[in-house]
C-alpha cells in the first residue's frame, strides 16, 4: 500500500489515493538535489519522515542544505533523485492544492499593500484555493489587530514577519514551511515570536518545518530536531526533544533544556 503511494521526482500523473492518516505529513526518501548540472551536490541521499502535526526544527551548519530541503519539499527546486511526498502527493500537486505555505527569511510583503491586503494575496492568485481563514482573524491571531491598514514600511521587522505568518495561514495549510523566519530579527522579538509560533501550532494543529541555525531556538520549538551535516548535505540525526509540549521561555533555563542544547551543540560540532 505504501509503495503504491510513492511519487517519483519526475511527478507521477496517476491519481493520488487519499492520504493514509497514519502516514507521515512529509516523506523524503533517498533524495539528491544537485545544482549547476549535477556538479554541486546540495543534498545527498536524504531520507526522513515527518509525522502528521509535528513541529520539526531543522538545524545544521551553513551549506548543509537546510533551505534546499525545504525548497525541494515546496517544489521550488526539483529532486535529482529520490521521492518527495507531501500529504500523499507530489510537491507540485501539493503546491497546487495549497497543502503547504512557505514563510521566508524576508517577510516578502508587497510594499504597496496594507497588512490586510498582503494577507489576502494568496486568495487572489493561483486560483485562490478552496478553504481559507478570515484574514482579519489571522491578523488578530498574530497580534496585529488594529494595524490592518498599515503599510509594511510602517511596521517593524517583527510585525512584518507576523504579517507573513498570517499570510501563510490564510489558506489553512496542512503544512507550514518556515525558512529561518526570525533570522533577521533581534533576540527579544525573536523570543516573543517563538512563543507565538508555538501557540499558533497548538491552536491550528499544522505540521511545521522550521529551519534555524540557532541551537536554543531549535530545541525550544521542536518536538523533533532534524540535524543535517554539510558537504554534501545529509541527515546527521533525527531526534525527539524530550521536553513537555507546553513550553515557556523560562523553560530554557532548566537543566533538561541545557542538557539538550549541549547535546545538539556536540552533534553540530561533529558535522
Amino acid at each position, binding site marked *: 500500500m505504501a509503495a503504491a503511494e510513492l511519487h517519483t521526482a519526475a511527478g507521477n500523473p496517476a491519481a493520488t489515493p487519499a492520504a493514509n492518516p497514519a502516514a507521515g505529513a512529509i516523506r523524503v526518501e533517498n533524495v539528491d538535489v544537485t545544482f549547476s548540472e549535477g556538479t554541486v551536490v546540495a543534498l545527498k541521499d536524504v531520507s526522513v519522515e515527518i509525522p502528521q502535526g509535528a513541529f520539526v526544527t531543522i538545524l545544521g551548519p551553513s551549506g548543509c542544505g537546510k533551505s534546499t530541503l525545504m525548497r525541494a519539499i515546496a517544489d*521550488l527546486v526539483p529532486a535529482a533523485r529520490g521521492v518527495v511526498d507531501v500529504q500523499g502527493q507530489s510537491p507540485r500537486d501539493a503546491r497546487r492544492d495549497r497543502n503547504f505555505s*512557505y514563510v*521566508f527569511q*524576508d517577510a*516578502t510583503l*508587497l510594499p504597496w499593500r496594507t497588512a490586510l491586503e498582503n494577507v489576502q494575496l*494568496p486568495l487572489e*492568485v*493561483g486560483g485562490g484555493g478552496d478553504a481559507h481563514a478570515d484574514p482579519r482573524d489571522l491578523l488578530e491571531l498574530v497580534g496585529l489587530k488594529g494595524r490592518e491598514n498599515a503599510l509594511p514600511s510602517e511596521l517593524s521587522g517583527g510585525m512584518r514577519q507576523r504579517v507573513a505568518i498570517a499570510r501563510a495561514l490564510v489558506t489553512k495549510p496542512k503544512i507550514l514551511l518556515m525558512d529561518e523566519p526570525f533570522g533577521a530579527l533581534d533576540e527579544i522579538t525573536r523570543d516573543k515570536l517563538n512563543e507565538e509560533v508555538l501557540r499558533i501550532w497548538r491552536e491550528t494543529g499544522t505540521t511545521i518545518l522550521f529551519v534555524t541555525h540557532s541551537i536554543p531556538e531549535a530545541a525550544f520549538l521542536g518536538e523533533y530536531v532534524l540535524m543535517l551535516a554539510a558537504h554534501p548535505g545529509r541527515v546527521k540525526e533525527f531526534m525527539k526533544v524530550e521536553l513537555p509540549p507546553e513550553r515557556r521561555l523560562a523553560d530554557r533555563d532548566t537543566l533538561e533544556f541545557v542538557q539538550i542544547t549541549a547535546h545538539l551543540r556536540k552533534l553540530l560540532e561533529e558535522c
Partner: protein
Amino acid sequence: MAEASQIPMPVPAPRLNRMLDAVVARGPALAAVAGLLLLWQGVVWFFEVPEYMAPSPVAVLGAFQENAGTLWLNFWPTFFEAALGFVAGNLVAILLAVWFVHNSTAERAFFPIAVFINTIPIIALAPVLVLIFGNGFAPKIIIAGLICFFPTLVNMVRGLKAVPPATLDLMRVLSASNWEIFWKVRLQSSLPFLFAALKIASTTCVIGAIVAEWIGSNFGLGALIIEATFNFRSPLLYATVFTAALLAVVMFALVSFAEAKLIRWKTSDVH
C-alpha cells in the same frame, strides 16, 4: 461690547498661517530670484545694454503684456505636441519593456536598435522627419515622442525586473500565473522606476517639440523663438523662452502629482 471682538474672523486663521508658513519656507528661493532679477535689471541699466542684445526684466514683462495673445496662441500647439509625444513615446516604451521582460529573444533583437535610435542626435533627425511628414503636427509629435522613449524603456525594463527573488519564490509557492505575477507584482514594483523616467520625459518632450518647430514650422513656441530672434525682438524672445519653461514646469508638476497619487509606499527598507 467686549464680546463683539471675540467673534471669530471669517477667514480661518490656520489656513492663513499655513500659507504664510509656505511663503516663509520658500523665502530663500524667492529672495534669490528677486535678487537675480534686480541684478539683471541693474546690469542692463548700468552698462546701457541695447535692448536687442539683452532686454531688461521690465522690458520682458512688457513683452508678456504686449504679446499675451501671440504667446497664448503659440503655447497650445507646443503643449499639444509635447503632451501627445509624451504619451505616445512613453506608451511604446512601456509596451516594449513589457515585451522584453517576458521575451529575452525580443530584448536581444530589439534593444540594440533602441540604443541606436537613442544615439541619433534629435536635431539631426528633425529635418529628416520634416521632409517625410511635412510642416504639420506629425514630425513634432514624433520627435517629442522619440526623446521620451529611451529613458523610459531602460527604466521600465529595470523596474519590471526589480522584483526580489524571494517575492518570485512566494508567487511560485502560491502557484501564481505569469499574468498574475505581472499584474500583482511586476507592474507595481516598476512604478517608481517608471516615474523617475516620466519626470525626465516631462521636460524633454517640450524640448523635442520646440526643436522640431525650429526646423520647419510657422506655429508654436519654437517658431516664435525663431521669428523673434530673426526680427531682433529680444523681449518677445525672452518671454517665449519663459513660456516654454513654464510649459515644462507644468508637465513636470502633472507627472509629480500623478506619482504622488499612485505611489504611496516607500521603496527602501521593505522586501
